[in-house]
């Protein structure tokens, strides 16, 4: 009976039993480069050409059971499954002229087919134990301290998950420091994964200065050193596709963000990259329904941080109807409602951050506003000067910035008013709107920027977003 249904079980659950266990006792190969190689190879799933060994020493290693050979593609009654990226979709498999099936989903990392193998290194690496590694000497707020204690005990206990539901601007990074301090004291390997490369680059210097003696590497698509051999890895979630059972502590930042919740291979890889005994810490300001359900069923422990680090409540978005937004935009004008608001702004010295649904809208809105606001520019995902423009805006060289949803999260500008044009558009879902509203009032000097949703009819996402923000503010007052 059980056997009959085992194929369905395989279909619906992640199964990583094919990753070999680490060897208890092994004679390491007599190689001066050995330590270096061990650090590089441990906890990874590599292709032959990613292993920097000549054929002779490779074969020697393979025969010495230090290196496990794993078939890369599984064949099931319901189809194929790629072990590297977890892909199970029939249309993302194809076959070569010799009949070998290959995975099209993760082909950009080098093709793997039925005839090729993944190699896993079975020797455990002892990571250094850093006592008192954390050199950060800031003070956490009460709300932060509470969450931080929970994180610390989760890391200490291991084998559990914890969702940290912290509002935008709560100071999530600092809350991790005490927990990571403990992890490094225990000689654990840590990974912090985030969906965006920009965030990786922003986090690296912060962690380097907080943990100056711990080896930290940043892995993202454009990073120079992709070896991933450090004790502490800060990586985009895509980079986790090379890891298997590697980390004792796995922190996933913005677990609700695109592409993490869209691309199924990323949760698969993130789960696999963590050891069985690992502590998984999820950070988010806007959990997806899947996690909210788990919280409601008490399957996922959660800790709230309903207050920003400066103690002020989140700015609550205001709705202003502008039914003629699309119509006026066609004539290269802005709706009178918007123009009226711009004229009557309370604090006109704040910078303006304007969100629009599409790239085309961004271009048009920028053109229109350029008459009244001379220093204005726009950014979007395929803009080559994107990071430069954001930097200029941060330096206040620009008065206004028109953007698509790419700036919805992860970026901090001290003093901005946030406008959303056509906030009923489908790209602005509840999570996006909460994140966008969270861009305002980030600095303790100016904690209440305005957030205005110009809409052509309220949507559920808009209403829910405001409800959630109000709820968090209410919770925050109680702390």
């Amino acid at each position, binding site marked *: 009976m059980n056997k009959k249904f085992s194929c369905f079980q395989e279909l619906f659950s992640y199964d990583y039993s094919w990753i070999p266990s680490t060897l208890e006792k092994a004679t390491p190969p007599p190689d001066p480069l050995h330590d270096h190689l061990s650090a590089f190879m441990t906890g990874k799933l590599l292709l032959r050409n990613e292993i920097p060994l000549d054929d002779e020493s490779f074969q020697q290693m393979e025969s010495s059971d230090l290196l496990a050979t794993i078939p890369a593609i599984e064949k099931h009654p319901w189809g194929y499954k790629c072990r590297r990226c977890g892909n199970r979709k029939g249309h993302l498999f194809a*076959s070569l002229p010799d009949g070998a099936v290959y995975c099209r989903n993760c*082909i950009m990392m080098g093709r793997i*087919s039925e005839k090729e193998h993944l190699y896993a290194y079975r020797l455990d690496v002892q990571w250094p134990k850093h006592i008192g590694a954390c050199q950060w000497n800031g003070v956490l707020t009460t709300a932060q301290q509470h969450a931080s204690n929970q994180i610390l005990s989760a890391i200490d206990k291991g084998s559990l998950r914890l969702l940290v539901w912290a509002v935008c601007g709560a100071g999530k990074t600092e809350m991790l420091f005490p927990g990571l301090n403990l992890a490094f004291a225990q000689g654990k390997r840590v990974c912090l994964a985030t969906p965006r490369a920009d965030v990786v680059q922003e986090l690296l210097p912060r962690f380097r200065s907080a943990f100056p003696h711990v080896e930290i590497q940043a892995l993202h698509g454009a990073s120079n050193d992709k070896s991933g051999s450090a004790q502490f890895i800060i990586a985009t979630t895509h980079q986790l596709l090379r890891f298997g059972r590697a980390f004792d502590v796995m922190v996933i930042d913005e677990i609700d963000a695109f592409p993490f919740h869209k691309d199924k291979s990323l949760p698969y890889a993130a789960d696999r990259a963590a050891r069985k005994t690992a502590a998984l810490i999820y950070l988010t300001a806007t959990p997806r329904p899947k996690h909210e359900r788990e919280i409601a069923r008490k399957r996922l422990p959660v800790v709230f941080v309903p207050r920003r680090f400066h103690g002020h409540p989140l700015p609550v978005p205001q709705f202003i109807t502008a039914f003629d937004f699309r119509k006026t935009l066609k004539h290269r004008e802005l709706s009178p409602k918007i123009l009226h608001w711009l004229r009557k702004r309370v604090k006109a010295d704040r910078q303006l951050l304007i969100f629009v649904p599409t790239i085309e809208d961004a271009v048009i809105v920028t053109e229109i506003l350029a008459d009244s606001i001379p220093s204005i520019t726009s950014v979007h995902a395929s803009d080559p000067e994107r990071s430069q423009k954001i930097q200029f805006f941060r330096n206040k060289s620009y008065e206004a910035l028109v953007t698509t949803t790419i700036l919805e999260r992860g970026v901090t500008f001290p003093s901005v008013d946030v406008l959303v044009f056509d906030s009923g558009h489908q790209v602005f879902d509840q999570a996006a709107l909460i994140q966008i509203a969270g861009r305002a009032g980030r600095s303790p000097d100016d904690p209440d920027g305005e957030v205005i949703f110009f809409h052509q009819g309220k949507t559920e996402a808009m209403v829910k977003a405001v409800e959630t923000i109000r709820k968090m503010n209410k919770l925050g007052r109680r702390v």
Partner: protein
Amino acid sequence: MRCLNCHEIILHQVTWSNLFSPPSDAIICESCFTQLERISMPQCSICARPMARGKICKDCERWERDESWRGILEKNVAVFNYNEAMKNIVARWKYRGDYILIEMFKYEIQEVFQLHFSQQDLLLVPIPLSQERMSERGFNQALAIAALIKAPVREVLTRIHGEKQSKKSRKERVNTENPFQLLEQVSKPVLLVDDLYTTGTTLRHAAKLLKEGGAPAVYSFTLVRSG
């Protein structure tokens, strides 16, 4: 049905004219299709490079001026221009090894072949890969193209040593030794098949051998005309 290139679901617009006919089996979606650029008509009569005016492009003029290369290659026919989208697709297909991607060009390849060569009785000869490259890639991209054309294919060439063409300059390419070897004599006119026509050196090297080996005329067919 999913688009072979971008994996999005292809949605069929139902209109009165196609309401009762079976849905067309499109392989790629509308937006991927529009990114591909067919070679436009005023083109060099030898190498199919799109040009504003004139009959033969400068490169081909140089080839034809040279005694030893004159008339070696009758004519090259190519299907697509090498624009950004095409570069990405070819890179994924050839270098990343996503073999199935060639299917998305099937109709265009067959159409262009029909247009230019349907009257002739031709033997298709794909440009070979070296042993090394073949085992690395798992398929020969030229053979993959030839397999889509409804004509007899025979692999009569082998490659002796392989160094990547794409890393050499034109001068280096033209002056290299002939990298091919002919396995058997041919008597029919030959259509060489390859993925890219860049300087035409590879194809001319192969064509020269084939001519020496008995082929009365050698044409070539490439997926892309680059350069």
